[in-house]
């Protein structure tokens, strides 16, 4: 771990400005890349073309010879797709301060690894051996990073959040705006119940165990709102000790990775439909990338595992509505309220916070805007089509290629999670923070299950049909 405390800042502080923010935050770059691809796809579709040539994806295969044939036949497309992703993410990464000369070679390795995992998921025996791409990517990455280790030169390309946010913006293009408007309020209500309950349980448990209130709040938002992002947002807003933020991050990451494997298995053993399972994962996973890995895994069971009803996309759709609309969007409000309480009610730390309502916008996860805009663009374009025309023309010519690109972006993220989760680098968390957070995890999973299967079960079932 780098001990910055013993050195002056190596880089000058970034200048805060509205225009600067548009290019120095990866949320905005996810919007530029995601909406840029949507804009190109719409332009091509409107002129009678399609993005599908470059949005190449592996097809079902039985023997290794099939894979070789696919690669030979589509080699120019895979090469062009690499150039498209490398240019898009490379420009974004370079603007964020990551050297392009270090990013591109690392991204080439990530692209090849992702392609191999994508192909493996399309093997006609993959369901039989539980080789779901998210779990394979994560498992392989975890194995490598925690045994032989990952060479440092690969690090510049392992940008989990950059890829997952871009994928979520692209996901918006496949979700009708009417569906978001219909299911969004239910997701907000369910997520609010779970978030408030989980935060309360973690916070009260932590304080009762004698932990610092700022640590309690950081742990609480990490478990209740949006995982590591929630922990760093509130940790900064309340002025938590540096070691306390590290503790919260370690606990969230470990539990989130455990839940990627546990939640789909539990939902599968209970025979939950894809919509209900997605909603449960959305309320009970801690981070977007981890939750999408779990939800996409569960979606893969539809049609392959007896007793799992609902469409394959319903799990990711329900998850995204619950997590992004129901939980992520509100992190600014949590940060504002808790910083206000910290400033006025908690003990003085020697650093005085100066909070204001502007905090809500400053910490708003901007990529959500891209997700909603992508949905709106497709909604406007689709207005002139009947349902039959939409299924026959718009889906294969416009929506499906964007979905293929989304799958690539998500798989970049899944592999990156495994490769960046290096357990030996985590700080020791101590027993009391572990107990407080774990009590919250148990309550979160239980309350999320009851709400997803009993209280709103019928609603999430219908969404999956």
């Amino acid at each position: 771990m780098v001990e910055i405390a013993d050195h002056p800042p190596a880089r000058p502080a970034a200048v805060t400005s509205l225009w600067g923010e548009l290019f120095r935050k990866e949320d905005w770059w996810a919007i530029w890349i995601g909406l840029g691809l949507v804009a190109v796809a719409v332009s091509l579709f409107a002129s009678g073309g399609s993005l599908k040539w470059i949005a190449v994806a592996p097809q079902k295969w039985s023997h290794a010879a099939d894979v070789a044939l696919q690669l030979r036949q589509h080699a120019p497309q895979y090469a062009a797709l690499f150039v498209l992703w490398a240019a898009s993410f490379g420009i974004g990464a370079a603007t964020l301060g990551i050297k392009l000369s270090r990013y591109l070679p690392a991204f080439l390795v990530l692209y090849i690894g992702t392609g191999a995992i994508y192909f493996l998921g399309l093997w006609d025996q993959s369901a039989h051996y539980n080789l779901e791409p998210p779990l394979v990517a994560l498992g392989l990455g975890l194995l490598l990073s925690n045994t032989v280790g990952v060479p440092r030169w690969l690090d510049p390309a392992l940008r989990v959040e950059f890829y997952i946010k871009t994928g979520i913006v692209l996901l918006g293009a496949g979700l009708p705006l009417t569906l978001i408007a219909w299911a969004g309020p239910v997701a907000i209500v369910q997520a609010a119940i779970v978030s408030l309950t989980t935060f309360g349980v973690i916070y009260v448990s932590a304080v009762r165990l004698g932990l610092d209130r700022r640590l309690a709040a950081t742990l609480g938002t990490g478990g209740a709102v949006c995982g590591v992002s929630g922990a760093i947002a509130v940790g900064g807003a309340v002025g938590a000790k540096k070691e306390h933020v590290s503790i919260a991050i370690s606990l969230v990451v470990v539990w989130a990775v455990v839940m990627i494997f546990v939640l789909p298995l539990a939902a599968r053993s209970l025979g939950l439909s894809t919509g209900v399972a997605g909603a449960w994962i959305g309320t009970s996973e801690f981070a977007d990338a981890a939750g999408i890995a779990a939800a996409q895994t569960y979606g893969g069971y539809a049609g392959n595992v007896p007793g799992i009803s609902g469409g394959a996309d319903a799990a990711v759709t329900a998850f995204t509505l619950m997590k992004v609309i129901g939980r992520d969007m509100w992190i600014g409000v949590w940060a504002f309220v808790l910083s206000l309480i910290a400033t006025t009610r908690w003990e003085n730390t020697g650093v005085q916070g100066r909070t204001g309502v502007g905090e809500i916008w400053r910490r708003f996860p901007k990529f959500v805007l891209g997700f909603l805009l992508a949905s709106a663009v497709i909604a406007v374009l689709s207005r002139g089509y009947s349902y039959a025309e939409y299924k026959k023309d718009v889906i294969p010519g416009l929506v499906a290629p964007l979905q293929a690109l989304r799958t690539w972006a998500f798989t970049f993220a899944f592999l990156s999670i495994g490769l960046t989760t290096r357990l030996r680098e985590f700080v020791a968390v101590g027993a009391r923070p572990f107990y407080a957070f774990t009590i919250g995890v148990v309550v979160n999973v239980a309350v999320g299950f009851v709400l997803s299967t009993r209280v709103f079960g019928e609603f999430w079932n219908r969404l999956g049909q």
Partner: protein
Amino acid sequence: MNSCTDCRHFAQAPADVEAAFPGLWSLSSAYASVRADDGICTVHDRYVAASSVCAQYADAGRASTCTRQS
């Protein structure tokens, strides 16, 4: 009163923040909007908002005159 943004004890560059918090980049990012411009105060050893203020402020362009607190 000057805020942490211009203080020489304030480390807010995303690479520094990610180096200081192992695991941060696994499921989040120091380049994310939710982080705003928060950074690490090396005097108080706290993670604080850039708009915060304290008595130990030292302009980034000048030599430090304050002592580090435990």
